């Protein structure tokens, strides 16, 4: 198996705080991997480093054989990595549909093509019925789904999802899980940050666990949940799934 993304000895410090500490992992193409860990573990920072939103203090990020740790975010996106923001960032003065169109303009200049792609993206996350709404009319879970739709419109090869299912009812989450599975079957590689262990167990074929910026475990979901280090880091942080 070849890795689509390889993260090698990645570190990021903010002043004295080491948010990501010498983390390495690889993502196999077409798989769903979960990145888990208590709040403040460094998951979002990892995403920022991979997506080009931040430069690492040290280490490499290799995507499809190309080093990308110094590439700007727009280039990383155009190479095929799309990300969502944990703190949602809708374009406020654009409709839901227009928001979902923006990503398509990374590969087409046709407005019609962008619009039909945006509809497909919205449909796959269950937002097609709200295409013409303003983003401030959406509930927070819907806004997270909009983040996902925006990212999907870029037609990525790797999708980074940062807690997009937070606040969803179990039936809604199950729907999203189905969509992610289908996307993965179609060849999309997904790295997702998710707090609800039930969802992680269900959807991920691999799990990477961060704690205080360092990787403390990696493996199949059932291996990882049985790992005493993982249990302790979660219980110690007062974690409740």
């Amino acid at each position, binding site marked *: 198996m070849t890795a689509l993304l390889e993260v090698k000895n990645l570190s990021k410090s903010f002043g004295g705080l080491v948010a990501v500490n010498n983390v390495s992992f690889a993502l196999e193409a077409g798989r769903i991997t979960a990145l888990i860990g208590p709040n403040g573990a460094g998951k979002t920072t990892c995403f920022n480093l991979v997506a080009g939103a931040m430069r690492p203090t040290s280490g490499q990020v290799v995507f499809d054989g190309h080093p990308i740790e110094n590439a700007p975010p*727009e280039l990383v996106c155009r190479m095929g990595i799309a990300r969502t923001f944990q703190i949602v960032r809708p374009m406020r003065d*654009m409709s839901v549909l227009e928001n979902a169109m923006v990503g398509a303009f990374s590969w087409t200049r046709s407005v019609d093509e962008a619009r039909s792609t945006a509809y497909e993206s919205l449909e796959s996350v269950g937002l097609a019925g709200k295409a013409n709404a303003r983003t401030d009319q959406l509930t927070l879970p819907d806004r997270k789904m909009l983040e996902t739709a925006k990212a999907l419109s870029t037609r990525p090869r790797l999708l980074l999802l940062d807690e997009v299912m*937070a606040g969803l009812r179990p039936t809604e989450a199950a729907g999203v899980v189905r969509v992610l599975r289908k996307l993965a079957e179609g060849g999309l590689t997904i790295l997702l940050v998710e707090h609800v262990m039930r969802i992680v167990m269900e959807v991920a074929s691999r799990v990477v666990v961060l704690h205080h910026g360092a990787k403390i475990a990696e493996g199949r979901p059932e291996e990882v949940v049985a790992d005493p280090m993982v249990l302790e880091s979660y219980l110690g942080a007062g974690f409740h799934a």
Partner: protein
Amino acid sequence: MKRWLAGGSVLVVLALVGALASPYLISLLTIVLLFTFLGQSWNLMLGIGGQLSIGHALFVGLGAYSVALLDVKYGVSPWIGLLLGMVIAGSAGAVLAWLSFRFEVRGIYFALLTIAAAEFARIMFGGWEFVGAMQGLFFPAPTGAIDISMLRGDARFYYFIALALAALGIVGTEMISRSYFGYVWRAMRDDEQAARALGVRAFRHKILVIAISAATAAVGGGILALVQGSIFPDSIMGMGLSVDVLIGPVVGGLGTTFGPLVGSLAAIPLNHLMSALGDCLRIPGLNSIAYGVVLVLVVWFLPDGIWPAIVRLGKAVQLPSRLWLLQPRKAEE
């Protein structure tokens, strides 16, 4: 569609006015239409591209001087002057933007840089003999005969040129808004980081939108110079002109297609009226005070501007099904 009917009928009325109105009204409306066009240029940059300029007089002035210098000194057609002005102002805008964003000068700091550049140019032109220094440049006195190749004619001629320009600005703004550029620029305006994460090459798009805005402002400046018959650095490149450019879109509605027209129609006649009233009553500066009061009132009561308020009114009357908009929003996390 309703917007187009409303906006289009305003233009038709303006065309009729041009055929019938008195010379005074025609020259007033010529200025309104020219500032509509300049407002559209400014609006493209802030309302769509998200980049604030408070030194648009720089680009207006570069266009005005290009036209005036070629015409007055060398007898070259203003059409060539307009093209030259577009190239010079577009390049000036691009260089200013490139330097600024290259060194991470953005937002309000970029806006300050636009004033600094405009003031620098004003002072430079004011001391430069070749361009007439403080004495300015004067076009040959009008004969009243219409000459399209030299863009010379009577007040009515310039009125229709200004009307055509404003209409072109409206159509152009709308076309850009609906194109790839409109979407990408509005995304960048709303959230540059999020737009970049979606593949928007913000650096080059910011330079592009500023260059286009600058080039169109130069066209407005060139025509303004012809209409006025003379240019002076302090008026054509001064801070006052930069403010006049942005009043229309701010009052009428930022980022909207018809806002600059509606805003200029409201603000400029008011300015002239108050200025005349001020002369009558011997209250100098009454027009500036009125400007200020209107600005405050609009920002206070219609923060999106006049045009969106008119659109909302139209919708509220005709589409009661939109009432679901008024339902309370669900609470956040």
